[in-house]
């Protein structure tokens, strides 16, 4: 099955117009020695066969289980308004709005996205999108380096492991260094250690990165960390979870300079990891350092309100090697999903989602503690936390056989930390049911024995 319109006649007539006999002549510029002779790929499938194959593959994934897995990507109710809008061809089959006259749909939605994320974070400049939470964190780290002209970044070990991994990859081989800050028993970042690291005059710090909630689900003393960073001339980067911002203090309130995060919870399906949405918001005066696209409001020559990509002298297609980032194709459609999601839920709806997740998580905490898996950290949490379970990986596997995904064994993230070898990171959201929680605790009791 192909989608092309050309009939044999069409092709012949076009070749004739070019004065050639065969389409091969159009490939004569490829050196003969390098000319490939076809492809060894599975044969073409008609649409029905293809649909059957895809359904069979999708059916082989087990997605119907009671799951308590979060760790940076969360199950949420996605109102059907989101997909109604996302499946409009006018949105998903257009591209970067280079021609604003015929792209106001995309441009205005990006402007609205920027405004909504600004409302959530309290930070005024929002990049139109980054690839995901990990990439946004790495870009924010690079941004602190550019803004301060320093080359060292401190990141809490309790920032999402993969975000730290990603930042490390981006830093790899360059002049920059990324150092990790330890955590305390309550699950928060060790601020005394932060203070020590910031005090090293030989190695001035560009940025300090903490998560709120952090990778253990624990709420961090963000204001204190921010003021320590600022005192040392460093920028403070908050890694946030956007739904939580309906109930938690926004980054601007604790004086974060930059907020980044994973936008997936805002109406984007889990999809085994992507496409997701990298959030990145910053203080207004950092606007020239912001990587990625920005849309601004202006007027057309008739005076009508209109939107356009702006401050483009930061971008790769204009500035080439001097650009703030190499990002080009980004996550516009995912940003649209977030925009429709937020518009559908509104402030009260988003608050309900966050608070209900917190309430269900508390039910989960009690149920698991009762079943013999108490919390690991003493710090406050919102809707995710670690529990201590003897022989966690075995328990996790045994529960899987009972159709329960018992969160994430933290040993996968911190294989060298004996403290965490018996820990499971579990979460609840508004879609977690009381029935799922009791199935989990009952099965756990059985498996622990």
């Amino acid at each position, binding site marked *: 099955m192909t989608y092309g319109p050309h009939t044999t006649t069409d*092709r012949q007539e076009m070749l004739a117009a070019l004065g050639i006999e065969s389409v091969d002549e159009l490939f004569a510029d490829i050196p003969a020695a390098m000319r490939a002779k076809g492809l*060894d790929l599975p044969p073409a499938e008609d649409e029905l066969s293809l649909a059957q194959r895809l359904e069979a593959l999708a059916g082989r994934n087990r997605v119907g289980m009671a799951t308590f897995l979060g760790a940076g990507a969360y199950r949420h*109710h996605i109102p059907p308004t989101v997909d109604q809008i996302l499946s409009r061809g006018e949105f998903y089959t257009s591209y970067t709005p280079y021609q604003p006259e015929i792209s106001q749909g995309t441009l205005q939605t990006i402007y609205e996205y920027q405004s909504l994320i600004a409302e959530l974070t309290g930070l005024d400049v929002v990049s139109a999108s980054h690839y995901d939470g990990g990439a946004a964190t790495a870009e924010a780290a690079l941004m602190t380096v550019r803004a301060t002209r320093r080359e060292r970044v401190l990141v809490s070990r309790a920032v999402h492991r993969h975000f730290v991994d990603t930042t490390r990859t981006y830093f790899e081989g360059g002049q920059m260094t990324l150092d990790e800050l330890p955590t305390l028993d309550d699950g928060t970042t060790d601020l005394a250690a932060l203070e020590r690291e910031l005090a090293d005059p030989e190695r001035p710090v560009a940025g300090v990165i903490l998560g709120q909630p952090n990778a253990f689900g624990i709420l961090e003393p963000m204001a204190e960390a921010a003021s320590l960073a600022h005192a040392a001339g460093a920028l403070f980067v908050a890694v946030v979870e956007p739904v939580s911002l309906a109930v938690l203090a926004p980054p601007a309130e604790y004086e974060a300079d930059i907020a980044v995060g994973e936008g997936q919870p805002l109406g984007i399906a889990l999809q085994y990891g992507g496409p997701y949405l990298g959030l990145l918001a910053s203080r207004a*005066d950092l606007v020239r350092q912001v990587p990625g696209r920005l849309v601004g409001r202006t007027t057309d020559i008739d005076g009508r309100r*209109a939107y356009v990509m702006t401050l483009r002298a930061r971008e790769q297609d204009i500035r080439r090697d001097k650009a703030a980032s190499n990002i080009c194709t*980004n*996550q516009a459609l995912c940003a649209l999903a977030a925009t429709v999601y937020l518009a*559908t839920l509104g402030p009260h709806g988003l608050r309900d989602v966050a608070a209900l997740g917190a309430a269900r998580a508390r039910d989960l905490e009690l149920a698991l503690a009762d079943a013999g898996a108490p919390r690991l950290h003493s710090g406050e949490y919102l809707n995710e936390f670690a529990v201590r379970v003897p022989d966690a990986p075995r328990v996790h596997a045994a529960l899987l056989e009972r159709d329960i995904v018992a969160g994430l064994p933290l040993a996968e993230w911190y294989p060298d930390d004996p403290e965490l070898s018996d820990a499971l990171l579990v979460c609840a959201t508004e879609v977690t049911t009381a029935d799922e929680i009791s199935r989990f605790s009952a099965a756990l009791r059985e498996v622990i024995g």
Partner: protein
Amino acid sequence: MTAVGEPDVRVEAASSANGAPAGESGVRQVVGPGLQPTLAELSRPGRGSSKVPHPPADAMDRISATHRRAQPLGLPELNEPEVIRHFVNLSQLNYSVDTGFYPLGSCTMKYNPKINEWAARLRGFAALHPLAPDDTAQGTLEMLWELEQWLAEISGMAAVTLQPAAGAHGELTGILMIRAYHHSRGDTERNEVIVPDSSHGTNPATASMAGFKTVTIKSDEAGQVDLAALRAALGPRTAAVMLTNPSTLGLFEKGIEALLDAVHGAGALAYMDGANMNAVLGKFRPGRAGFDVMHFNTHKTFSTPHGGGGPGAGPVAVNEKLVPFLPWPRVLRTPPSDGPGDARFRLERRGERPASIGRVRSYQGSVGVLVRAYAYMLAHGGEGLEQVSEDAVLAANYLKQRVRGAYQVPYAQVSKHEFVASAQEIRARTGVRMLDIAKRLIDYGFHPPTIYFPLTVEEGMLVEPTETESRETLDAFADALIAIAAEAERDPELVRGAPYDSPVRRLDEATAARQPDLRWRPMTGAEPVCPQ
């Protein structure tokens, strides 16, 4: 659409049908395009209704006040009907592949098959958690593994990572692997990347981002890499040469054998930007030809939607040299190759392959995008993909032939999937620029091609028709370009004033940049700090 004309029949209602404040977007179109107020303007306190159960009243009590949001959250309050109407009306302001011809050069705006959209929404794919235990993800893992094999076959490379989120991200991944490769051999002095001046902006930006110095070399008259200049630039500090092939001029690099010899001779590696693979599927396999690493753009070559600017996916293929450095986690198969017996699939674990450059993103890839690419490739098979390239190249050359004469075609060589034409002579004679011609195309019902790119051609446009547009459409577009060239001679002001027939007309971009307005006024709390 009727062009009404008489200003006296224009509606000047104090408040318009879409509830926009008077004087803001007061003029509104009934059916179809209507400029819209913002969500904030549409908001009324108390609107909207419950999408989730109400939490217990004390749900947040256990969280201490320091952590809690003090100020109410300033999001707009709308009811569902208004939300839908807002976005449906906004959508109609967009030009898109689903509504018309979109020959944006370098972007391969081909048709996005609808079965792909259906497939990506299958619950088994869509609801799978990124950290789902391998046992629960066998369908997706198998799909990813097969897709890697297919891309390896097309690229002629040894292995593929599907992790990068877009072409530029693939470039970064590739360049970081190249550095890791040199370092692994103790070769730590290579801190330069060479790029031709016709390369895509992401190439030099990637090199910088990875901490390399960019060395730019000029193209020759024929739009090809200047081999002498390249040889002169190559040296012991050269880590890599990044080459877009076919180039952003739509030309195949003829001197590729000599070029690759020179690069490898200098101990550097050759990166191929494969964003333009739509021209050479089954015709040219970069790995076999001698490239060390390349990326694909699924949102170009393999029909995954452009989404108003993304998301895409930028898989990277590498030859044997670079396999150890691929990002983790890779998808592993037991038994390893496509042998008989029941296969099991799993992801690499942390630390399992120490030479890896690491992760380049949060999870294992834009899987929702990759499902679509998978469906596309399977729909076509090998011969179908070759047909895609043949038709794409045929369409580009046919269209070039049709507009030659009205416009200059700077390069004599046969084109691949796109071609450059120039309005240099039109501008010299009439003052009408390529920008004006592009805007005038809007009135004719077409999305303009990419203009002023590559920067090396004056008054240039880069036209990429793709293989999914009919000959009638190609002819209609050629007719329009020719008609506009004639208009430019006859009535240059007409062309310079275009577009006339679009939801808005030319924008005041200068003010947008001088006084950036990047968000609406905060709905609660403090005044915004206006970005400078």
